[in-house]
């Protein structure tokens, strides 16, 4: 008899991966579904906003009769307690996990699962985490008010420093001086995909690398806006305030240094942009070697171009520099919409590791749009099941652009200024439309 718990974990895993929840991601290494990694992206309007928080799940054979064990792994190496209920040691205090004394009806049940645990953890990441601590739920003295504010301020800082900056610097091999340290691995190796994947026990399992990089590009402006705002509240060198519930080795200590953080965030953006540019160079080499990816992209390019022609779509697709890894898409604004008459040029960069690393789109024509970051990066979602299909990416970008009545979703906040106008009152929306149309008009000049 196959292991029963495995059936259910596998099912939950694929359901979650199919869902379009932009703030959760889960991954397992190869076939070992009992050891799972999950990523929670910090919720909007909380000090955790757009931070990347990772958790390790271990399911034993008794699942779902017994809860899995869950450990927070974004803790700055066991030194940072991000929440009254998320300890520096990684312990997650949650009644459904049995790690917290719960009220009646809050304990684990077989109907709970991966998603409900992740949502429970996410709900701990609130706008005022101070009140998560037992005994502080209704604390409202003057001192508590002060503590609440100062707790939020230091969480905001450490979310940016630890969960975003440290993580991305590690992913990109950025050294302390801000320069990229050459990776140790042999560069010529990537062609030998098959040999590479077999005995790579030494390579750490980092399933969220590409996701976090792409999200960083989405949320870059929000990070900068957060820093600008924080700079009006705290000054560099000021120490964090210790909370009454923080004890030895289970605390969040340090000093504010937003000047330093801003420098590092801007540097990460620069290195990321360089990485994208480097794909083009690597791509040309891959093209000469006729790598599988190069051949695949060339073929997909030709098919999509053909399909535009056949279906009478005005859009045009070309290769940049005859490189199958860099496409130029010319998009014609949809008639009878705000985009009518616009002519937009997009550059699409593909990685030599496509589709493991997803393509990066950039509008070269400036367009004021709530789904396009000021640097031209569009915020779109392509179905996870079709990520190797370049066309599904292009269609998803166009869909994001043309969507007429999108649902309010702060996880798509990639252009703070446009987002605020778009979702503001009727006057703001009018202003948004005016600015969008103006940029469409400019695109024709």
């Amino acid at each position, binding site marked *: 008899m196959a292991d*029963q718990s495995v059936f259910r974990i596998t*099912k*939950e895993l694929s359901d979650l991966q199919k869902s379009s929840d932009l703030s959760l991601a889960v991954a397992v290494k190869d076939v070992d579904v009992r050891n799972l990694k999950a990523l929670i992206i910090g919720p909007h309007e909380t000090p955790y906003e757009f931070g990347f928080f990772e958790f390790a799940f271990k399911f034993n054979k008794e699942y*779902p009769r017994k809860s899995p064990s869950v450990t927070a792994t974004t803790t700055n190496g066991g030194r940072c307690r991000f929440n009254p209920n998320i300890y520096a040691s990684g312990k997650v205090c949650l009644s459904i996990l049995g790690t917290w004394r719960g009220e009646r009806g809050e304990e684990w*049940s077989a*109907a709970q699962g991966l998603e409900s645990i992740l949502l429970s953890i996410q709900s701990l990441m609130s706008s005022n985490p101070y009140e998560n601590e037992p005994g502080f739920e209704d604390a409202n003295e003057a001192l508590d008010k002060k503590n609440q504010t100062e707790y939020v301020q230091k969480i905001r800082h450490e979310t940016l420093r630890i969960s975003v900056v440290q993580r991305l610097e590690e992913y990109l091999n950025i050294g302390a001086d801000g320069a990229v340290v050459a990776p140790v691995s042999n560069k010529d190796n990537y062609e030998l995909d098959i040999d590479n994947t077999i005995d790579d026990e030494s390579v750490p399992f980092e399933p969220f690398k590409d996701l976090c990089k792409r999200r960083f590009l989405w949320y870059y402006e929000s990070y900068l806006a957060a820093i600008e705002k924080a700079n009006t509240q705290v000054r560099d060198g000021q120490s964090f305030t210790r909370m009454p519930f923080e004890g030895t080795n289970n605390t969040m200590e340090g000093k504010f240094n937003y000047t330093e953080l801003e420098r590092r965030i801007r540097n990460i953006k620069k290195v990321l942009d360089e990485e994208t540019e480097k794909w083009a160079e690597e791509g040309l080499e891959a093209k000469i070697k006729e790598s599988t990816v190069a051949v695949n992209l060339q073929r997909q390019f030709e098919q999509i171009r053909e399909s535009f022609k056949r279906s009478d779509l005005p859009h045009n697709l070309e290769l940049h520099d005859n490189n199958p890894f860099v496409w130029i898409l010319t998009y014609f604004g949809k008639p009878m919409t705000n985009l009518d008459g616009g002519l937009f040029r997009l550059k699409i960069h593909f990685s030599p590791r496509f589709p493991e690393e997803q393509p990066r789109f950039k509008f070269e024509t400036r367009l004021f749009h709530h789904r396009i970051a000021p640097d031209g990066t569009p915020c779109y979602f392509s179905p996870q099941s079709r990520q190797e299909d370049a066309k599904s990416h292009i269609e998803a970008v166009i869909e994001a652009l043309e969507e007429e009545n999108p649902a309010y979703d702060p996880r798509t906040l990639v252009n703070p200024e446009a987002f605020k106008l778009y979702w503001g009152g009727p006057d703001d929306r009018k202003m948004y439309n005016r600015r969008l149309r103006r940029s469409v008009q400019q695109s024709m000049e």
Partner: protein
Amino acid sequence: MKVRIKKWNAVATWKWDIPDDDVCGICQVHFDGTCPACKYPGDDCKLLSGKCGHNFHEHCIMEWIKQDTAKGQCPMCRQAFEWVNPSNNDTSSLEGQQSEQDY
């Protein structure tokens, strides 16, 4: 024309008398399928309906309810789990059932 039937195979389909697209809250498998321990749906892998309105594979709910930590509660709504007895439409609570087995 006369037709003589030499042999015939009757085929029938069946489904559980519960709402469509419902899954077992424990194993999350559709009720048309079996619990993860069984191979064929049907009498070998029965469903059990709780008085609270929640249905499960019998094997799944039994595994859950026999644990002390379950406190005899339905995993979905945490009310005391009492099932509807399909044969005489009688209801019996778990405690009753278990003590009968003890003797």
